[in-house]
């Protein structure tokens, strides 16, 4: 008996949607084994990370709040990845979005009115876009790889954040802590469910995903993205400009990462602090793949990843599992998913080994 791979004529739709679920289940199984081997209660770790946040209604609001930035960033990244544009600097664009929103908040401190928050949100999106501008310019004009430039700018963004909160933006009444002033009531995201931490960012995330779904499946732009990504030569014959697509993909993903940043700073944080970069930009890369680069899939993937993030926090307090363990679970999820891609494109056939080779 042996196995043989046969290429499918069409990628399997069933496998495309089933494999992410399989990847999560395999991660839980292998995670339990690995963490048992290194001396933790592996089964308990998996239960705390993957099950507790779902079963405990008190954690549902955390799931909503944590999944919102992941979904918003991942939707933007997925548009780029479909076009073969590899923006991996979403973390930097997210920071810039938060910084731009904070800048507007500090300038409008003495004003009040419902116009302040929308202005902050627009500034955040422009901030995120500005950090994607350079990678787009260099990629289209000089063929400089956007993977490296967007990532390098993330490190620059972290230094810019440190400089601002330690220097010019430091709260003068803050007892020397490196942080800005608290935002005023008009600068904070309203909570949509009273008594919870669920803020406006949650419905915005759903709207962003739905809008992206509409654009990708119904509009020419979405079609252009897919053609440029899968068949650049055909795109050129079809009159689609590859460079314009790269610009659109990078600026869109930058703007959405910036949107996530400003929603975070005006939501859960309420001020700019050095601990603002929370790896959402990197985790969203996994979310984008787990959601099969499809906006609706990304909603589910964002929720699943939020389960792991919230569960990781639960496990830290209940069984002293280090924060870094979540990173291992996340990367395992991505490894299994990438491995299972083979099943989408190929069919595994069992071949009997007792076939007789006839030699003349």
């Amino acid at each position, binding site marked *: 008996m042996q196995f043989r791979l046969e290429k499918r004529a069409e990628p399997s739709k069933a496998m495309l949607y089933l494999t992410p679920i399989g990847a999560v289940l395999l991660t839980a199984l292998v995670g339990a084994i690995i963490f048992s081997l290194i001396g933790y209660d592996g089964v308990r770790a998996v239960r705390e990370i993957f099950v507790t946040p779902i079963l405990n209604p008190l954690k549902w609001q955390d799931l909503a709040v944590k999944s919102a930035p992941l979904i918003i960033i991942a939707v933007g990244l997925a548009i780029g990845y479909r076009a073969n544009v590899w923006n991996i600097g979403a973390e930097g664009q997210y920071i810039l979005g938060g910084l731009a929103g904070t800048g507007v908040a500090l300038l409008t401190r003495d004003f009040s009115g419902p116009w302040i928050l929308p202005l902050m949100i627009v500034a955040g999106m422009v901030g995120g876009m500005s950090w994607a501008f350079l990678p787009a310019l260099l990629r289209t004009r000089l063929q400089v790889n956007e993977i490296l*430039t967007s990532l390098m700018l993330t490190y620059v963004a972290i230094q810019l954040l440190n400089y601002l909160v330690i220097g010019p933006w430091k709260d003068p009444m803050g007892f020397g802590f490196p942080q800005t002033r608290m935002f005023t009531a008009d600068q904070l995201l309203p909570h949509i469910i009273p008594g919870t931490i669920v803020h406006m960012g949650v419905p915005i995330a759903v709207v962003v995903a739905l809008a992206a779904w509409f654009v990708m499946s119904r509009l020419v732009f979405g079609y252009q993205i897919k053609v440029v990504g899968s068949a650049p030569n055909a795109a050129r014959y079809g009159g689609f400009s590859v460079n314009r697509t790269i610009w659109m993909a990078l600026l869109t993903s930058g703007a959405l990462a910036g949107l996530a940043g400003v929603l975070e700073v005006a939501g859960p944080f309420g001020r700019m602090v050095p601990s603002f970069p929370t790896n959402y930009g990197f985790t969203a890369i996994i979310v984008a793949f787990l959601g099969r680069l499809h906006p609706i899939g990304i909603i589910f993937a964002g929720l699943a990843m939020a389960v792991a993030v919230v569960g990781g926090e639960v496990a830290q307090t209940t069984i002293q599992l280090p924060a870094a363990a979540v990173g291992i679970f996340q990367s395992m999820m991505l490894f299994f998913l990438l491995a299972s891609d083979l099943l989408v494109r190929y069919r595994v056939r069992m071949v009997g080994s007792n076939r007789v080779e006839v030699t003349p």
Partner: protein
Amino acid sequence: MNMDLVVPIIITLIGASTPILIAALGELVVEKSGVLNLGVEGMMLIGAVVAFAVTYTTGNPWLGILLAAAASAAASMIFAFLTLSLSANQVATGLALTIFGTGFSALFGQAYTGKPISIFRSIFPEALATHPLWRLVFGHSPLVYFSLLLVVAVWWFLKKTRAGLILRAVGENDLSAHSIGYSVIGVRYAAVAFGGAMAGIGGSCFPLLLTPQWAERLTAGRGWIALALVVFAAWRPFRLFGGAYLFGLVMTIELYTKASGGTGGVPSEFWAALPYLATIAVLVLISLRRSGHSAAPACLGKPFLPTN
């Protein structure tokens, strides 16, 4: 010029350049075989934490380096299996490897935070390195001599040996190499393993050469700079050597401005951001000079799919 002042600066410069040089030489070989492994940063972190843990436990830095190389090579095999055997997307898999390495090193290193080891110093007798100039020749850690030998060795391997020729053929035209009868996948597995081992040794430089303790994300993006350097060097070992030392210089400036306190009115965060800005500037310069024609191996990043 004051010898007692200049020599320590040069030694700092060499120390800062060595880890990126070793890791980048490994990645150069990987890319020459047509594979793009974005997991360098993660593998360096695995190497760093393993080197620290082994050196702390056994007191033997040689064993630390050896096991760091082995651990990172093992991690690179996850990447190799997914991308070469299952033809998964190389960019995504490399990213996953970096996330894995970051998580693994943080988890594994938790028990070692705040514990000291001693710097892996020169193996030559102290007496040889008393004069500042002799210190420049004999005063380095074995890791530094290893990095310099590695430059020559990689150049010699790629240019002068039959195995190096096969590796380049696999990276330039995998289908032809396959039809002549070379194992494209086998060659690439070997290259990825070598790249992993070198990233591990490069990572081991951080606790053994630079800061003799463990901290999360100790490598601070140096693995990504190593990746950029390979592009900068146009896949040539000697140019890579120059590039690594250029970056070492930028990082040395950062260290000295921080240490002296006075940064001439420029905020210290600017100096901390400088290596990353310099990387972008260098990538721009190199693409300006190249004007269209790329020096990259033709099959870089593409999965090998023989038609059977």
